[in-house]
C-alpha cells in the first residue's frame, strides 16, 4: 500500500546518556491523600487476602479513585507484592455512601512468591531494552524503568504482523519474543517504557519487560492505540463551527481552548512520570491545544497554531497536502500553517472538544482521566515507515495526546482523506479514557473490546454532535453506526451493524476470536452495542439480523446503551476482560443504573446472545466448541503486530515441523452430540491449511513451509449438533530440514548452528525461518517445533 517516497533527511546522532536516563521507580506512595472511602475500600481488599491466596507481603496500591454519578466511590487498585507492582494484577472496589462495599477480584493474581533480589540493576535492564529497541535518534522523554513482579505465564513469543495488502498475518521477527517463560511462576523484572519521537525513528512507543535475573526480554509491546485509519473554524468536515481559542497579549489568537483541561498536560509540562518535557517546548501546557507537525524540526517539534489576528481558522477545503508531486517524487509543501493547512486541525479540535463535552455533560466525566488533565492534538502526522502521507491516527497514553494524519488520498486512489472526522476523534480520545480506567490489554479479546469501546463511544460522540439545542445531558437517537465513513470517502472503516461487511471483522464470538487482529475482533462487541441500542431484526435479509437471536430484539436507545457501556468500561472492565466477562460487566452496570428494572438487563442478555455470548432470557445453553492448543500449551504465545504500530495478541499458535502427525483436539459442551467436522481453513479465504484432518482429529502437518510465506496454518472445527458453533485455531508450520537430508530431526539444529551469527547463511537451508542471516529466531523456532511435535509423553510403550 505504501511505497517508499524519496526524501532526504539528516539523521541525528543518538543523544543518549544511559546513566542519566534510567529512572527507577520503587514502591510508590499514593499520589493523592486517601479519603475515608478509599481507605475503606483498601481495607476490604486486605481483609480478603487469605481467600485470594495471598499473604502478608501482598497488598493493593490505589491507581485511580472517582465518585460516580450514583455517589459510589470506585477505586481501582494495582496489586503489589513486597511493595512492588504485580504486572497484570488488579482489583476494583465500589464503596457506597451507605457503607456497603463490593469487590471485583477476578484479575487478582494468586500465590505470588518471589524471593531474593534481582541480579540486574534498573540501569542494566534499560540497556538491554535499548539494545533491543535500537533507536536511531533521541528519546522524546526519559525512559521509565519500574521494578515489578512479573507472572511468567505472560511471557510473549511469536509475533505476527497484519499485512493490509495481502489481508493476512505474517510472522514479525522484530517483535517476536524469543525467551522461554521463566520456570518460577513469578520473577523479579523491570518494565521499561520508551517513547521515540524524532525524524529518524518517527513516533514509536515501546514497552519492555526485562527478566531481573537473566536479562531476557520477556515481553515487548507497542503502546500506541490507533484507529487504523477542528474563534470560528472552517474544517473540511465541520464547515462552520465555534472553537475555543486563546487571545494572547499581542492580540493574536492561538488554538488553545482553556475551558477544556485545567491540569497541565503531563508531557508538555514535564510533570508526569517522564522527564524532561518535550524538547525545547516553552508554550502553553493547559487546555485543549492544537499543534501541527513541524517538518523543519529534527525532533518532529510541536508547532502551535498561533499568531492568527482574526481568530478564523481553516478554509473549509480539503487539505491539498503536505507534499507536492506524485507518489514517487515529491517535495514538502510546508503548508501546514496556512489557512488550508488549518482545516484538518479545525476538524480535530472540534471533534476533541465535542468528545470532551460528551463525556462531561452525559457522564459527568472531567476529561480523559476524569481529573481535567489537559490533552492536545497534533495534526499533519506522516507515515513513519515511508515518510509519506499517513492514513491513521492514534492516542498516546505516555504523552496524553492524539495524533492525526492527513490521509493518503489522492496519492493512494483507494486511500483515505483527512482522518479527523468526529467519530474518529471520539474514538481516539476514548482510548485515553480506557487507558485511564480499564486499561484493556491490546491483545486478544480484551484488545477487541478496547477497540470496540472506542468505536462505540466514537459513534455516540458523533450522535451527540447532532443533538438538538438545549439537550446537552443525553445522547440523541439515530446515527449511521459507520466508523470513519468521511475519511473513507463514503466507504466506512467498519460497519457496527454487520461488521463482517468489511470482509474481515467478525459478527459473533467464538473460541479463537482472540487470534484475530483487534480492529476485527472488535466486531462482535460493536454489533452487540448496536443491538442493545437499536435492536436486532427478525428479517434474515436485514443487516441487523442475527442467527443466534432469530426472533430479533428491541433496543433501549442510544442514551441508555451508552450509559450502561460507559459504566461497565470505567467501573467493571479490567485489563483482561474478555467477552463473557464483558457481558457480566454490562449486566452489573444495567442493574446499577436501572435497579428493579428487567428491561435493560434483559436487553443486555439478548444483545450478547445475538453475538453468541451467553443466553437470552428463555434460551437454552448452546453447544460450545473449544479447541485446546496442540500438544501442551506451546511455549510461544503468538501476538499480533500491525505493520504500523503493533497490535498484540497473546494467543496460542504452536510451532510444528512439516509432515508430522499431530492430534488436534476439540471439546463440545452443552450437547450430547459431541461430533465435529474439521475444516482446513480459517475465517477468511486466505486463511488456509493443507491436508486433511480425520474425524478423530488426526492430522499430518502440511509439507508446505509456512515460514516461507510467513503465514499461518488455520483450522476450524464445527459442531455437528449446531453448525453455528465452531472454534478456530492456528499452527505455524516450519521446515526444519537445515541439513537437507529430507528428515525433520534434532540434527537440523547442528546444521543451522553452522551459520549462526554469520551475515549470510552458508546454505539457505540453515535458516528455517528464511532469514538472510541466521540469528536467535532459528533455534527458538526449531527447538519449539521439536518439543511440540515430538513430546516424550507420546513415546510408545505397550
Amino acid at each position: 500500500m505504501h511505497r517508499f517516497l524519496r526524501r532526504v533527511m539528516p539523521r541525528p546522532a543518538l543523544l543518549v546518556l544511559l546513566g542519566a536516563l534510567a529512572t527507577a521507580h520503587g514502591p510508590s506512595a499514593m499520589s493523592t491523600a486517601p479519603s475515608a472511602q478509599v481507605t475503606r475500600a483498601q481495607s476490604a481488599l486486605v481483609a480478603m487476602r487469605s481467600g485470594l491466596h495471598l499473604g502478608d507481603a501482598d497488598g493493593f496500591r490505589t491507581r485511580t479513585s472517582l465518585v460516580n454519578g450514583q455517589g459510589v466511590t470506585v477505586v481501582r487498585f494495582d496489586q503489589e507484592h513486597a511493595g512492588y507492582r504485580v504486572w497484570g494484577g488488579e482489583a476494583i472496589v465500589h464503596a457506597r455512601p451507605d457503607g456497603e462495599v463490593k469487590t471485583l477480584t477476578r484479575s487478582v493474581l494468586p500465590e505470588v512468591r518471589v524471593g531474593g533480589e534481582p541480579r540486574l540493576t534498573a540501569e542494566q535492564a534499560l540497556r538491554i531494552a535499548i539494545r533491543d529497541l535500537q533507536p536511531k535518534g533521541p528519546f522524546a522523554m526519559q525512559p521509565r524503568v519500574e521494578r515489578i513482579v512479573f507472572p511468567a505465564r505472560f511471557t510473549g513469543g511469536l509475533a505476527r504482523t497484519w499485512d493490509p495488502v495481502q489481508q493476512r498475518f505474517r510472522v514479525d521477527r522484530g517483535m517476536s519474543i524469543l525467551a522461554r517463560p521463566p520456570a518460577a511462576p513469578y520473577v523479579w523484572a523491570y518494565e521499561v517504557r520508551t517513547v521515540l519521537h524524532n525524524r529518524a525513528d518517527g513516533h514509536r512507543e515501546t514497552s519492555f519487560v526485562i527478566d531481573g535475573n537473566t536479562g531476557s526480554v520477556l515481553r515487548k509491546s507497542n503502546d500506541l492505540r490507533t484507529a487504523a485509519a477542528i474563534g470560528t473554524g472552517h474544517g473540511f468536515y465541520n464547515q462552520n463551527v465555534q472553537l475555543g481559542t486563546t487571545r494572547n497579549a499581542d492580540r493574536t489568537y492561538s488554538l488553545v481552548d482553556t475551558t477544556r483541561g485545567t491540569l497541565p498536560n503531563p508531557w508538555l509540562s514535564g510533570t508526569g512520570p517522564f522527564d524532561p518535557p518535550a524538547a525545547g517546548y516553552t508554550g502553553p501546557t493547559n487546555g485543549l491545544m492544537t499543534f501541527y507537525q513541524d517538518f523543519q524540526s529534527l525532533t518532529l517539534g510541536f508547532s502551535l497554531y498561533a499568531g492568527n489576528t482574526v481568530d478564523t481558522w481553516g478554509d473549509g477545503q480539503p487539505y491539498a497536502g503536505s507534499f507536492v508531486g506524485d507518489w514517487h517524487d515529491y517535495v514538502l509543501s510546508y503548508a501546514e500553517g496556512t489557512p488550508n493547512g488549518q482545516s484538518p486541525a479545525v476538524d480535530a479540535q472540534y471533534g476533541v472538544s465535542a468528545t470532551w463535552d460528551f463525556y462531561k455533560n452525559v457522564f459527568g466525566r472531567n476529561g480523559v482521566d476524569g481529573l481535567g488533565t489537559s490533552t492536545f492534538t497534533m495534526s499533519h502526522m506522516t507515515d513513519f515507515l515511508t515518510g509519506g502521507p499517513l492514513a491513521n491516527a492514534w492516542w498516546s497514553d505516555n504523552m496524553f495526546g492524539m495524533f492525526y494524519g492527513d490521509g493518503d488520498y489522492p496519492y493512494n486512489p483507494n486511500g483515505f482523506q483527512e482522518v479527523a472526522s468526529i467519530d474518529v476523534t471520539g474514538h481516539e480520545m476514548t482510548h485515553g479514557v480506557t487507558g485511564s480506567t480499564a486499561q484493556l490489554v491490546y491483545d486478544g479479546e480484551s484488545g477487541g473490546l478496547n477497540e470496540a469501546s472506542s468505536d462505540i463511544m466514537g459513534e455516540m460522540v458523533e450522535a451527540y454532535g447532532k443533538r438538538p439545542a438545549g439537550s446537552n445531558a443525553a445522547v440523541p437517537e439515530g446515527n449511521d453506526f459507520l466508523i470513519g465513513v468521511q475519511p473513507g470517502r463514503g466507504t466506512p472503516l467498519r460497519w457496527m451493524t454487520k461488521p463482517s461487511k468489511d470482509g474481515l471483522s467478525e459478527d459473533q464470538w467464538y473460541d479463537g476470536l482472540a487470534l484475530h487482529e483487534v480492529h476485527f475482533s472488535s466486531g462482535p462487541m460493536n454489533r452487540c452495542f448496536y443491538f442493545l441500542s437499536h435492536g436486532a431484526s427478525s428479517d434474515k435479509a436485514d443487516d441487523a439480523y442475527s442467527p443466534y437471536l432469530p426472533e430479533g430484539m428491541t433496543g433501549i436507545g442510544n442514551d441508555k446503551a451508552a450509559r450502561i457501556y460507559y459504566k461497565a468500561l470505567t467501573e467493571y472492565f479490567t485489563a483482561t476482560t474478555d467477552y463473557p466477562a464483558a457481558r457480566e460487566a454490562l449486566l452489573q452496570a444495567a442493574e446499577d443504573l436501572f435497579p428493579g428494572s428487567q428491561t435493560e438487563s434483559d436487553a443486555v442478555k439478548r444483545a450478547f446472545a445475538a453475538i453468541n455470548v451467553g443466553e437470552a432470557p428463555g434460551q437454552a445453553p448452546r453447544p460450545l466448541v473449544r479447541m485446546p492448543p496442540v500438544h501442551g500449551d506451546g511455549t510461544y504465545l503468538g501476538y499480533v503486530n500491525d505493520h504500523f504500530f503493533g497490535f498484540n495478541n497473546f494467543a496460542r499458535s504452536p510451532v510444528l515441523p512439516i509432515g508430522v502427525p499431530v492430534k488436534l483436539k476439540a471439546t463440545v459442551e452443552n450437547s450430547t452430540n459431541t461430533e465435529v467436522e474439521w475444516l482446513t481453513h480459517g475465517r477468511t479465504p486466505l486463511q488456509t491449511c493443507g491436508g486433511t484432518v480425520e474425524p478423530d482429529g488426526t492430522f499430518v502437518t502440511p509439507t508446505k513451509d509456512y515460514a516461507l510465506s510467513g503465514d499461518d496454518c488455520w483450522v476450524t472445527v464445527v459442531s455437528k449438533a449446531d453448525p453455528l458453533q465452531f472454534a478456530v485455531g492456528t499452527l505455524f508450520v516450519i521446515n526444519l530440514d537445515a541439513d537437507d537430508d529430507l528428515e525433520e530431526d534434532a540434527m537440523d539444529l547442528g546444521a543451522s548452528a553452522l551459520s549462526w551469527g554469520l551475515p549470510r547463511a552458508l546454505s539457505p537451508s540453515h535458516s528455517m525461518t528464511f532469514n538472510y542471516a541466521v540469528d536467535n529466531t532459528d533455534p527458538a523456532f526449531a527447538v519449539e517445533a521439536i518439543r511440540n511435535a515430538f513430546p516424550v509423553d507420546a513415546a510408545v510403550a505397550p
Partner: protein
Amino acid sequence: MHTRLLALAVTALAVAGCSGGGNVAQLSYTDPPPYTPGWRLVKNASSTPTRLVLDLVGPGDKSRGVGFNLQADPRLRFVPLDDGMPVHDTGVFELRSLLPDTDVPADLGEPVYFAGGVMPGNVLTVGIFQKDRGVSAKSTNLPVLSIALEVAPGGQPGPLALSVLKARAIPEDIGGTVNGGYDPQAVLPPQVIAKSHLQPIHIAVGNLQVN
C-alpha cells in the same frame, strides 16, 4: 558364591511374586568395549535396576556439538529429563553466545541449539550444538549428554534392540573467526566455509537386556 547369588535371585523373585505386582522388569546394560573407536553410549552410575541412564562420550577429539537418532525396542520408553525433554545437558558444551573476550553469557535466557524428542517409531532424536564461533570447541572425553530409558511393566526377559539410525557432529575447526557472539559483519575464510558441514559419526551401543 554362585549358589548365594542364585538364592538371592530366587528370593527376590519370590518377594515380587508375593507382592502381587508381577515381575519387576530390570534392565541390564553392557557398555561397548572401552577402546571402541568413535563415540559411545555408556552406562551412567546413577542408573537403577529399572531406569537405565546412558551417557554419550566422545573419542576425546574436540567438537562443537553432536546429535543422533536412536531407535528403541517398542517395550522401552524414553524418560523426560531437562525441561521435559528426553535429554540432559551435562554442561560440557557452551550453548550460549558470550560477551566479547569473556566467558560470560550475553543473555542467560537466549535460545540455544539443544532439543530432544521422541519421533514416531520410538525414535529418540537429540541434538546439542554450540552456536557462537568465538567460543572454543570442547573436549569430548567427558559425557556430553545423557538420556534415560525404562522398560514397560511385564516385559519378557531377553535382549532389547537399541540402534543408532543417524549420528552427526560439528567438528572443531570451523570456529574462532567470529570474535564474540552474534556478528553480522563476520566474514569467513573459504577454507573455514569448506569445513562447515555436519560430519557423520559412529556411535557404539552396548547390549541391553531385560531380566
